[in-house]
Each structure stands twice: as structure tokens, then as C-alpha cells.
């Protein structure tokens, strides 16, 4: 009985939340645009083999530098590869690297951040360790980001895994700091002190009580960060330190077409850059929508406005 009622309430809560979400999209059309872009890019990444009209790495030596038209919608590059097909294939690489790298950095950063935030005010070894981690983060962040990323890829050897690791390293301090401030404020809350007084071991307090309550800003950061990571991947590939040609990747495609720009063949560079920009734009829109949705004050205001304007219950 009780369980059935719970499930019913949860379903109602779920559908109300969905209604709220849909209402937010309606008042912020740009957010809907963001979700549409992200969805489209993800779908393209998954279904590229079926959507793309040409194989992405096969050059047609006769049809090089064909202008956009038929049958090459976006033309061909200097080696005769079909740009449209390559633009469609590219998110497979770009998104995988960016998502993996961002998740990894969030994992490293939030774990360390939770530990640092928790042990910072404890005397002895914990405090010393926390200080050491923070000073190391200071030093890492003092580096010029881009040079640092290139150096990391160079250290690990040029491969996809290395790019993922470089992205994870470069971004980890962001999550470290974010989580640390969150944990430091949550640590002083009553329920955490109660758990501590009840003799709960540290790791369980962190895992059960602190981390779940500190995750909201991390989630908002993730989407924005995936966008940045796509940019970073493309930038690394552009200077030849990332994904190597002929693997279809936006940055390396721009680099391949770079020499042709001055001779008036704009399409090999412009189209992949456009796809790159639209993708990152989509992820930033999704990021700011999460920010709005998870900010309680804005949420209330918005809910009120929606209710009066459109008669929709939050």
C-alpha cells in the first residue's frame, strides 16, 4: 500500500517536474535550441555510418577541392575527401574525448575536493595533505593552460587516451575548487555533525552525507566543460598535437584546409569550424539551463511567472 502510494507520488512528482522543465523551455526558447543541438550532435555521432553519404577517410584523388554542391554537399578537401561525411563523423571522436576527459576530471577533482574540504579543518596529517593538494593545484593552474595541455599529450605520447588524460588534468582543479568550497560549507551543517558524533566513519560521512549534497554546481559545470573540452581537443588537433589526420576530427580538418583559405577555397575549413562552434554553443546553452533549473530562487521566480502567465503548475 504505502509503497504503491510512494511510487504514485514519485510519478506525479516526476511528471510535474517534467511539466516544469517543458514550461522553462517554452519561456526560454534558447534553452530548447541548446537541447536540440546537443541531441542532434549526439545522434549524428551514433548514426554517422548510416547518415554519411561517403566513407570519411577515403580520398577521391580526381574530385579534390570540389566546391559545395551535388553530390558533395560541403565540397571536398585538397585530398578529395567528402567534407560533409567527415563533419558528420567528427563528433564521434570529439565528443567521446571531451565527455570522457570531462568525466574523468570531474571524478578526480570532486574526489580530491571532497577529501580536501573535509580534512582541511582537521589538525595533523589531514590538514597537511589538504594544503599540499591545494598548493599543487595552484602551481598547475599557474601554467599557461594550452602549453600545459600540449606538454601533457607529448609526455603521454600522442594518442586518444593521452588527449583524454590531458583534458582531465587541465580541468581537474576547477572541480577540486568547486567541490572544496561546497564541502567546507556543508561540513558545518547539523546533520553532518550529528553523524560524526554518532561515530560514523569519515568515509561514510563523506559518501553518504556530504558528496550527494554538494553535487549540484558540479553538474552545472559538466555541460559547459564538455563544450570547452571539445574546443581544446580541436585546438590540440589543429596544431598537430591531438588527433591525427585523416581521422575525421573538426580541429584537424580546419588545419588541413588552412592552406586553402588564402587561395579562396574556404569550405574545407569553414564547415568543420561551424559545426564545432554550433556544438560548443549548444553545450553552453544546456549548461546555463541547468544553472537556472537548479537555482532555487530563480526556480521559484520562474515557476511563479509561468503560473501567472501561462496557468501552468510548477
Amino acid at each position, binding site marked *: 500500500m504505502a509503497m504503491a502510494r510512494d511510487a504514485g507520488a514519485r510519478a506525479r512528482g516526476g511528471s510535474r517536474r517534467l511539466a516544469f522543465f517543458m514550461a522553462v523551455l517554452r519561456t526560454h526558447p534558447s534553452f530548447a535550441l541548446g537541447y536540440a543541438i546537443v541531441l542532434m550532435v549526439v545522434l549524428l555521432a551514433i548514426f554517422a555510418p548510416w547518415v554519411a553519404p561517403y566513407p570519411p577517410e577515403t580520398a577521391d584523388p580526381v574530385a579534390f577541392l570540389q566546391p559545395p554542391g551535388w553530390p558533395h554537399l560541403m565540397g571536398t578537401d585538397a585530398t578529395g575527401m567528402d567534407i560533409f561525411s567527415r563533419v558528420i563523423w567528427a563528433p564521434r571522436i570529439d565528443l567521446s574525448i571531451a565527455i570522457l576527459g570531462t568525466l574523468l576530471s570531474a571524478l578526480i577533482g570532486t574526489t580530491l575536493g571532497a577529501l580536501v574540504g573535509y580534512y582541511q579543518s582537521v589538525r595533523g596529517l589531514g590538514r597537511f595533505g589538504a594544503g599540499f593538494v591545494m598548493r599543487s593545484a595552484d602551481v598547475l593552474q599557474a601554467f599557461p593552460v594550452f602549453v600545459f595541455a600540449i606538454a601533457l599529450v607529448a609526455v603521454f605520447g600522442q594518442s586518444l587516451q593521452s588527449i583524454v588524460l590531458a583534458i582531465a588534468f587541465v580541468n581537474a582543479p576547477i572541480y577540486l575548487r568547486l567541490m572544496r568550497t561546497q564541502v567546507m560549507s556543508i561540513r558545518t551543517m547539523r546533520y553532518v555533525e550529528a553523524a560524526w558524533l554518532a561515530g560514523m566513519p569519515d568515509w561514510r560521512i563523506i559518501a553518504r552525507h556530504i558528496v550527494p549534497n554538494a553535487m549540484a554546481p558540479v553538474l552545472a559545470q559538466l555541460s559547459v566543460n564538455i563544450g570547452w573540452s571539445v574546443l581544446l581537443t580541436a585546438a590540440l588537433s589543429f596544431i598537430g598535437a591531438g588527433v591525427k589526420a585523416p581521422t575525421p576530427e573538426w580541429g584537424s580538418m580546419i588545419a588541413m584546409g588552412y592552406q586553402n583559405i588564402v587561395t579562396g577555397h574556404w569550405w574545407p575549413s569553414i564547415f568543420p569550424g561551424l559545426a564545432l562552434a554550433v556544438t560548443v554553443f549548444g553545450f553552453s546553452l544546456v549548461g546555463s539551463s541547468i544553472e537556472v533549473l537548479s537555482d532555487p530562487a530563480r526556480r521559484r521566480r520562474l*515557476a*511563479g*511567472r509561468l*503560473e*501567472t502567465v501561462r496557468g501552468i503548475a510548477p
Partner: protein
Amino acid sequence: MTTPVLAVEGLDVEFPSYGEAPVRALHGLDLSIGEQEIVGLVGESGSGKTTLARAIMQLVPPPGRISQGSVSFEGRDLSKLDEEQLRTLRGRAMSMVIANPRSELNPLLTVGQQIGNILKYHTGCKGRELRERVIEMLKEVRIPDPERRYDAFPHELSGGMAQRVVMAIALICNPRLVISDDATSGLDVTVQAQVLELLKRLAERHRTAMLFITRDIGITAHFCDRVAIIYGGEIMEIATRARFFANPMHPYSVLLLAAFSHNPKLRSYWLKEGEAAAEARPAETGCPFAPRCVRVREHCRSVHPELRELEAGHHVRCHFPVERRA
């Protein structure tokens, strides 16, 4: 009869409440202030005092709005003026003394600059003359060592000093009306008395009319020409000071006065039993004060009382006003 400095007629201010009927912060409020008259407006927090002050300045905080009634200043209906005309009135012809001026003073500008700005943008006065007039004003509000304080920053001021600065800002343009919004509430009792004394003297010297809003009914006793009591966004009683203190007729007025009394019996008689009564929101129908009134009858809960003139210049909004006992 000459036109009053301020005439508020039938003023309604509403705040939209999502999904429900809007909340009325002020309801059919009438109030007029004559030349050089000081009117005390007494009410507890949430009674609509500050909303009234803002509504007079035509700056009701959004999403609130004036839904009915009018505010006339020296015979001009303010709702008919455009934003620029209103701006030239605010701070110049009618100004406000605010309470607890901590975050209201710009932390990056000196005291002199902030007072001077008002004069500069309203009268075009500048240069040496501006500085002299500001220092003159600082002297007038009794700020010691005005030459030096001119260059002080807000964070260097004590609470009483900041209060004087805000008074200087309100008075520098010789306004016709000053609204003092609970201006002394944040100060120590000793400082409070000084500031009040000063405010009264300045109002006299500048021949300014004043709406003196306060929570403390005791202050109005030595200070105001007339006293008005506000509850739930409506005037409950309004009378000249002498009449009001000699013969308070509204149960709420009596409750407020009883709170000052040294007679515990009196106090407890007028205070309705139970915590809940003190927290009760003003009633929507009938008399707003009904939920807290010790003399409430069935009639009070259903019929909204009108403001009636029970003796010359003494208006009361109560079905069963308190009779003076011999």
C-alpha cells in the same frame, strides 16, 4: 482652503501573488499633509508603512503596483507625470530619510560627493559653491569637524553619523516634504533622541512638511501635529496629537498605547490571549483588526468598517469605538 503639500486619496497598492488573488498592501488609503505639518504614521512591521512611503515617491518595489487611487503633490497628480518629471521631484521637492543607512550609501564615494551629487544633479550647483553648501549642511546636521568628514567614506562612519549624512542628503535641496521612514530605529536610545530633536528642528528651519513613519507610538507624542495609525494597509485612526492622546478610540490604538503603560493589568487586558493572535494576519473580510481585537463581535467579522469622523478632526475606523471612561 490651501492645497495640501501631499494628498493621498483612495490609494491601493497590490502585489501579485502567484495563483491567488493579489495581496493588497495598501487599501483605500487617504492621507493629507498640510504645509509645515508633521504627521506621524504608526504601525507595526508589515502594516504597509514603507509601501506607502515608496508609493508616495512613485517607486513601489516591483512587482507591486498602484492599482487605484492617486497621490497628489502640491496639487499635481503624480501618476500623470513622466519618469523624468518624477525624478526631478524626488530628492528635490520631496525626499526620504531612510533607516539603518549602511548599504544605502555608496561605499566608493565620499560623504561630500554623495551629498554634493544630489545638489549637483538637482540644481546644477558645482565647484567651490557646492562644497561650501555641503559643508554648511554637514554643520546643520551637527556632524563634528565637517571639513574633514567631507572626505570621509561611509565605512568610516558610525551609525549615528551615517544617519545624519542621510538626513543631510534628504534636506540639502530644501524639499517641501520629507518622509522619514523609521529613521531612528537602528540607533542607540541616546543617539536616537538627539537625531529626533535635530530632525524636528531642521523641519522647522527649512519649513518642511513631514511624514514621520515609526513603529514607536511614544515618539509621536512629542513630535507630531497629527497622528495616524495604520494596520493591514488601512488607516485605523487619525487625529490631532492632542485629541489622539487624550482620547484614543480604536482598540488597536489603545493596544499600542497600553504596550507603553506601566500598568500590567491594562496591558494584559488589551492584548488578546494566545501567541497566535499576535501573529494573525489582517482579516480579508470585515474589520482587518478583528482577529486580534479583544472587543470583537460578530458584526466586525463580516462588515468592513468605514473611517468615520467621531469628533472634529478625529477619524476612526471601528464599529464599536472605545468610549472614554470618566
